[in-house]
């Protein structure tokens, strides 16, 4: 075996160690991968549902689900949209923060807070299948 082949073998071994047994190319994934990704998403949806029904986001015991059972009347498919009361086009998560601050009397979350992402994941899941209608009132 010459030096060159030895080097390649070492590199291949290193890749096996780093990347696991399967070496994925970007354009190749399996049913199993898809299932795994969906499971990851659903686990975050569950976190979002738990937050949606829990009093812990606010200070007065009120939960999002009290006014929005199954996240209904949140219309995620219409965001971003103009909220006349705020005078500008806002994202859904800004409206979630508005609700946390007003009816829930709580502190707003950072817009990239994993809890915010989880609540958005839940709201979108409950609204799945509805056509996008950005800006709609």
């Amino acid at each position, binding site marked *: 075996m010459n030096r060159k082949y030895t080097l390649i073998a070492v590199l291949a071994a290193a890749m096996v160690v780093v990347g696991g047994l399967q070496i994925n190319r970007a354009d190749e994934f399996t049913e199993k991968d898809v299932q795994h990704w969906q499971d990851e998403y659903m686990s975050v949806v569950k976190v979002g549902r738990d937050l949606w029904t829990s009093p812990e986001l606010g200070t*007065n015991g*009120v939960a999002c*689900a*009290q006014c929005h*059972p*199954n996240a209904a*009347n949140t219309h995620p498919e219409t965001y971003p949209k103009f909220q006349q*009361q705020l005078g500008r086009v806002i994202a859904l998560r800004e409206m979630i923060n508005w609700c946390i601050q007003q009816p829930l009397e709580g502190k707003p979350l950072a817009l990239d807070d994993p809890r915010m992402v989880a609540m958005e994941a839940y709201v979108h899941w*409950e609204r799945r*299948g509805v056509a996008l209608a950005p800006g709609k009132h």
Partner: protein
Amino acid sequence: MSRGKVSRRDFLRGAGALAAAGTLPISMVELTFGADKDKESVSFAYISDSHIQHIEKSKFVRNWDRGLIRAVAEANLLQPKPDFVMFGGDLAQLGTKEELDHGAEMLAKLNGDLHCVMGEHDYYLDLGEYWSELFGPHYYSWNQKGVHFVVLNSILTYDEWTFDRWDSGVRRMAEMAGLDNPNGSPFMVGEKQRKWLANDLKGLDPKTPVVVFSHSPIQKIFKNWNFWTEDAEQVQALLKPFDAASVIYGHVHQIQYNQIDNISFNSVMATAWPWPYPRSYVQAESHMPKLTVPMNRADPFHERDATGWQWINVDSGRVSMSYSLSNNTDRVVAWNPKTGRPEDKVFQDKAGRIAPQTHY
């Protein structure tokens, strides 16, 4: 409107302005005098679903408190005085003594006789025991001005769920309090009460108008949120013999109305918060009565939007509902003798509807 805290003084000033301007009482007085004076009519104020929610110590959720305080203050302005006042259930959020006491204290400011209906939020902590100490029996009836009034406890459910499934009343209440909680259980009147009702109605002249007050709809509209009564058909069958029967219900926090054979159905608003119409949850099937012209989509930026209370008149045995809506134009849904069903006075005609009444 600023979202700052409204002080008690501001609120009272608001109520005073309302009385001076006369918007609320005068529109309702006209209605009374518009009715046929030769026939006796009976009228009452109807307040419902206040969901008084305890935070800790002497603190309660301000928003829900304000809804009930406002409804009580406005109902007291009614001229002429109604014959009685109804409270339609869900006075409390989690059925605690603190919540029921606080709610009862606010209701005590009402002028006139008060009759109460049991809501699931009042019931599932201690099965209505403390509520009963404050407000009396869970189901009962009385006659007034020729009308037979019946109060049902329609939020009961299967015995196994109530008595065997949960390790504490607190847990049981928490499970039933979540409207969309899949661990909940469908509402029902139950066999015992249906027997009582059959007996209560026995011997009553079929010409006697019967008005039933329940918390759940005595119809099957949307099971996911318990806009539903499991034994609705059996209860409806007991009302079949009467020329004019009406069911007035809470729980749904929105305007609904329907006609099934001889029975009219009308819902009342919540003072606490509105609920979406079932069609806005697209993952489950619902059966909203086609007759219903929805209330406006709620604007959360107005705290009292899509909440309110009602003044109800029963004339010739038929119900007319005057909705007093805090942040919306008031609405009237009344029996139309020509079509034989309840109809909105303004919006029944499709051409007259407004954009916010479209729910999606």
